């Protein structure tokens, strides 16, 4: 490297308000010491990616491989697995885990855990069910916000206990796991079930647009917007000399998004009815709900300051504190977001099963969702993870549940397989964590 220790050269650029360039400090573009922040070639990009994977940061690779593996295995044992009907069914089952796991990603990013999310979500669902049942049902426009706010308040309260009193998240949320199940039983009362007859509410989980053109319009618009944003951002970064992917990669990303969008529309527009008489086609609402949440949380984590602080706290809590981040509030916010997502998942569950019942297992729900987040690629050690990990991990978990049921394998075996998959995911996580730590 070219170290220039000559004190006569002005250091001014270092102290100027940023953006102001001091003439006395010419930026020597050829100097090897200057950070090379130009556009990299596709070749270099691929090599950098391979290096990243080898150093442990494998990104989405393991979970995508897992999905392919699941698809192949179950398709071989039952040819209906990848049929239209079951694919949409798979997505629907996955939606709860996806929503729940996106919330879990937040607490895992902080290096924390939330065991209570399952029952917190079910309590939210039960509150909605209670408000909608009876002779004077509340309007839907109030029911959903109230249920979500309640779960948010629960998460906020648990977060305060953890951050203000310094209690371990494991213990507080374990108490929540037990306590909120009790509350759920209290809400649902002696009957044990509260049915929901509100068609609009159940549509949250089971409704779909019958208009097939609408599927194309919605997905087409999303793809065009995504492509436009991606293209403009990468282009701007390339032209202003910032770190940017090569054009080819941007194009590849856009093509991938378009292909995925097309595949999704073709899938949901195909007839998924098992009965030949009444065809069922069209875009399910829950798909859009999951995509909307994914978009919101991705933007939040990636582009806003509180999102950045979540990563910072997970990476080095003390460094974040010294940088002036109010770590307690950010952590409390993480628990709150986790609970809100749980509440949303609770709505989906209530919608899918047409009500709330004590037989729904919130413990298994949260454990599967934590597994989903980890399988998706979120690190248990904090600081590494994305909202998309919850979505892809949820797909894997639901794929196992769905495939095992379809192939007629017992529930016992389902637990064993899920456990093994989680073990593999945690192993990948731990190995990459160790690699990342030792490459100093």
């Amino acid at each position, binding site marked *: 490297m070219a170290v220039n220790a000559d004190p006569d050269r002005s250091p001014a650029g270092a*102290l100027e308000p940023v953006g102001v360039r001091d003439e006395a400090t010419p930026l020597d573009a050829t100097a090897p010491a200057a950070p090379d922040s130009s556009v990299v070639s596709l070749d270099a990009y691929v090599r950098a990616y391979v290096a990243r994977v080898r150093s442990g940061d494998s990104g989405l690779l393991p979970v995508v491989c897992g999905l392919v593996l699941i698809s192949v295995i179950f398709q071989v044992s039952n040819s209906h697995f990848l049929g239209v009907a079951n694919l949409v069914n798979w997505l629907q089952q996955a939606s709860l885990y996806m929503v729940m796991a996106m919330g879990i990603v937040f607490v895992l990013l902080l290096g924390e855990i939330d065991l209570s999310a399952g029952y917190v979500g079910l309590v939210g669902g039960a509150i909605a069910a209670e408000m909608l049942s009876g002779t004077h049902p509340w309007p839907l426009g109030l029911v959903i916000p109230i249920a979500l706010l309640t779960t948010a308040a629960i998460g906020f309260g648990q977060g305060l206990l953890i951050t203000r009193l310094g209690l371990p998240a494991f213990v507080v949320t374990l108490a929540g796991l037990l306590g909120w199940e009790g509350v759920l039983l209290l809400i649902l009362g002696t009957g044990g079930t509260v049915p929901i007859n509100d068609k609009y509410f159940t549509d949250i989980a089971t409704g779909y647009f019958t208009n097939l053109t609408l599927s194309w319009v919605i997905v087409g618009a999303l793809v065009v917007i995504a492509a436009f944003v991606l293209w403009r951002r990468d282009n701007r970064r390339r032209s202003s000399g910032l770190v940017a992917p090569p054009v080819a990669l941007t194009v590849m990303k856009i093509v991938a998004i378009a292909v995925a969008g097309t595949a999704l529309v073709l899938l949901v527009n195909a007839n998924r009815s098992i009965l030949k008489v009444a065809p069922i086609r069209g875009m399910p609402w829950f798909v859009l709900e999951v995509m909307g949440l994914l978009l919101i949380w991705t933007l939040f984590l990636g582009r806003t300051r509180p999102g950045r602080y979540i990563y910072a706290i997970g990476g080095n809590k003390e460094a974040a504190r010294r940088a002036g981040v109010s770590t307690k509030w950010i952590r409390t916010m993480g628990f709150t977001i986790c609970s809100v997502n749980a509440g949303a998942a609770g709505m989906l569950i209530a919608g899918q099963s047409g009500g709330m019942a004590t037989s729904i297992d919130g413990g298994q729900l949260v454990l599967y969702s934590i597994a989903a987040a980890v399988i998706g690629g979120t690190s248990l050690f904090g600081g590494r993870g994305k909202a998309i990990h919850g979505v892809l991990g949820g797909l894997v978990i639901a794929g196992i549940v769905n495939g095992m049921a379809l192939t007629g394998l017992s529930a016992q075996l389902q637990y064993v397989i899920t456990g093994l998959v989680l073990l593999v995911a945690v192993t990948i996580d731990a190995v990459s964590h160790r690699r990342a730590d030792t490459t100093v």
Partner: protein
Amino acid sequence: MSDSDAIDAVGEDGDTDRRGRPVPTGVPLLELRKLSKHFGAVEALTEVDLQVHAGVVTALVGDNGAGKSVTLKTIAGIHPPDGGLILWEGRPVHIRAPKDAASLGIETVYQDLALCNNLDIVQNMFLGRERSRGIFMDEDSMETAAVETLKSLRTTTVKSVRQTVASLSGGQRQAVAVAKAVMWNSKLVIMDEPTAALGVAQTAMVLAMTRRLAERGLAVIFVSHNFNDVFEVADQIAVLYLGRLVASIPAAHLDRQMVVDLVTTGTTTRAIATSTNQIGA
């Protein structure tokens, strides 16, 4: 010796440092008065008096556990003091949180660097002070600024400012931490062993950079165990011994053996270069 005997030769008439500049007189930028800090039963700092002037590199030396890092953390708002006063430009201030220090213009390069391994260089340099446009952060402008600062420091060999800190070498991390501290319009830059992890070339670079900061009128507090570095860079040398400040003397009046004596025993029997200075009994 008691703290009141601590030597403080800054501000004596007619003193010049070894570079021929008059030693600054007048109100110090930062002054610690009888600053104390304990952790449970451990007395980490006992009535420390220290003056830090603008345009001066003040080296803070002392053995392991002497209290150097605790002193810096007190100034930086990490550990609020238990007793004593901190004066900033002559006025008493309360630095209770890192934010308070930053708003005064105090930037710190911590001994442990305080970087987030999972964040990239730009994200680390702007941590806690991200630029926003609306609700979203302005990544492009932050990246441009970070690149600018790194280039102007001529410090790093990093391939990309968008690589995570986990993928950097120790020296590169140090360079990022220093760049992070000088990027803001700071008045006082505190460096806790900034050269500890660096090779020869990068050490020279950090030392040169430290001098430049002082030449631009900033106050610098420089902690190091390496007396070569200390004598190369410091105008003023302050010695901590078991949590007490036992001396604060212009570097030109000291030699290496005296500093070694002060660091290891809290006192020195060797004569000091000028007659006006005295070592406390």
